[in-house]
């Protein structure tokens, strides 16, 4: 039998359900977002899709999405980074101190990403060179260390008031007078543009460079990566360093948004980041997941919180709901793996 014919027959023998799986695997999450938007629009027709509310959602998720993107890369290697919430706080504090010390704004702006970079590199070196049994342990340790250092250098009190150039990143508005006429109130948040640009860069990095491919290979089978001559430790250090760097960018965005560095900044946001990554379809076992999925996961968390707030649902119920969604998302992942390995 010729090859093409055989393939056609195999296809026909598969049930409709099985054939729909790849479609849902790829686009199911976007479908979920559309459903959420439709439902919330029906429930809150005047508010939810208003320009003000939508931009508000984007401003809120912009710094959280940086953490999620970094944690995503780490999870692809079958690792975990619990310290990103503390890195964001430490880089925010470093930025605030640099600002208070009177450094020029362009130096202050570099401080947060630089601190994040170094924190991430510290994680990566600890995990590889110190041969820690699991990244969980190293980054659990640095979760405490980084926040502790942040409080030590700031004295545990908030520091407020940054230069306008810093504030623009998290709080800036690109006016749309051209489209909506002079003096219109519609605008695009600067942080949304920054988020899209960074997600695009990392999409290129993960899908179109050799290191990106190796990150997925390490998550799939570190032994295979080593046998292929890939320096697994070096790639892991790169991944954790980039994760810290992105958390530092998150700190920069947060500085602009809140105009303040405070001791509780980013508290538990590492858990939100992990949740967004898992909801976005990445596998906790490594090697699986997409940048678009992370974006979707972040948006689902953001839309859900926003929608529940608009409807005055208590924070306690929000916690219950988000927790349930994580478990559901992972259960779907389990089912997907079962189907993927069917023979």
């Amino acid at each position, binding site marked *: 039998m010729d090859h093409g014919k055989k393939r056609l027959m195999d296809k026909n023998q598969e049930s409709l359900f099985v054939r729909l799986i790849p479609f849902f695997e790829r686009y199911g999450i976007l479908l979920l977002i559309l459903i959420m938007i439709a439902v919330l629009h029906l429930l809150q027709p005047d508010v939810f899709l208003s320009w003000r509310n939508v931009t508000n959602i984007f401003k809120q998720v912009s710094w959280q999405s940086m953490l999620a993107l970094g944690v995503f890369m780490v999870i692809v290697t079958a690792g975990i980074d619990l310290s990103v919430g503390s890195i964001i706080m430490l880089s925010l504090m470093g930025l605030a101190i640099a600002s208070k010390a009177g450094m020029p704004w362009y130096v202050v702006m570099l401080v947060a990403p630089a601190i994040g970079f170094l924190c991430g590199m510290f994680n990566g070196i600890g995990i590889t060179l110190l041969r820690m049994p699991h990244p969980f342990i190293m980054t659990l340790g640095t979760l405490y260390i980084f926040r502790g250092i942040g409080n030590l250098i700031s004295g545990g009190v908030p520091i407020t008031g940054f230069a306008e150039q810093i504030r623009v990143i998290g709080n800036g508005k690109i006016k749309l007078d051209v489209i909506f006429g002079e003096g219109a109130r519609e605008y695009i948040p600067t942080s949304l543009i920054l988020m899209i640009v960074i997600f695009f860069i990392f999409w290129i990095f993960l899908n179109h*460079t*050799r290191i990106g*491919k190796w990150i*997925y*290979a390490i998550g799939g089978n570190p032994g*295979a*990566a080593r*046998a292929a001559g890939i320096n697994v430790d070096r790639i892991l250090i790169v991944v954790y360093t980039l994760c810290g760097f992105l958390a530092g960018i998150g700190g920069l965005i947060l500085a602009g948004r809140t105009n303040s560095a405070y001791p509780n900044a980013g508290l538990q946001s590492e858990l939100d980041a992990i949740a967004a990554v898992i909801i976005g379809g990445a596998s906790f076992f490594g090697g699986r997941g997409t940048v678009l999925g992370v974006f979707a996961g972040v948006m689902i968390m953001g839309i859900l919180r926003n929608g529940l707030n608009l409807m005055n649902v208590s924070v306690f119920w929000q916690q219950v709901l988000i927790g349930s969604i994580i478990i559901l998302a992972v259960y779907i992942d389990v089912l997907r793996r079962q189907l993927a390995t069917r023979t």
Partner: protein
Amino acid sequence: MSDNLVLEAKSVSKFFGTITALQNVDLHLNKGEVLGVVGDNGAGKSTLMKVLSGLYKPSEGSLFFDKEKVTLNSPRDSQNLGLEMVYQDLALAGNLPIGDNIFLGREPTRKVGPFNFLDHKKRKKLTEEHLAKLKINVKSADQKVEELSGGQRQAVAIARATAFNAKIVLMDEPTAALAVKEVGKVLDLILNLKKLGVSVIVISHRMDDIFTVCDRVMALFQGTNFAESELKNTSRDEVIGWIMGKKD
């Protein structure tokens, strides 16, 4: 001995502390020849393969590639000389497509300004050409390895080993983990390599494998050369006897 000699090991010994894994072992391999290596567990087959691939340094003796004496410091060295090893645990990343696995670590790229980006089209084309050359049938080069059967995975592992014009391929129990119906396909693949002029060393416990693909068979016993014969001059019973250390 023939002029087509591609690989030779002369009185190779390997000691691990007080343990002697190999003692004065000789091996030679000709171009396009399939050599079967048999022996009981602990006879030294895997150690010999690891010496040939550069993973272990021999304690004594020397190796010759194309009749030139070489010293291998790592598997990279043997790869550069055209020798590839197919690992028993396959060393494939299940989450990646076939093509990505074949070219893992050696991906074709194209330059855009100062950056090197993956050349997806070229990889796909090279993969399809290579699979076609080896007559490996899969749905598509983009299929993930975890979706493949054991035999197909073995085929991908062999394709990976031969993607860069390997002259010599070492295979450690290539059919051990396979369903019966898939063994034949892998054996066909080995015969295909032979036709393409590749020399193959196969370690196997299965007499069916040895007697289907090999030109010559050699037996190790307790770390030494025990017996060797052209396949046509021996029989299954005799080879089984060698494995157990019996010679007429």
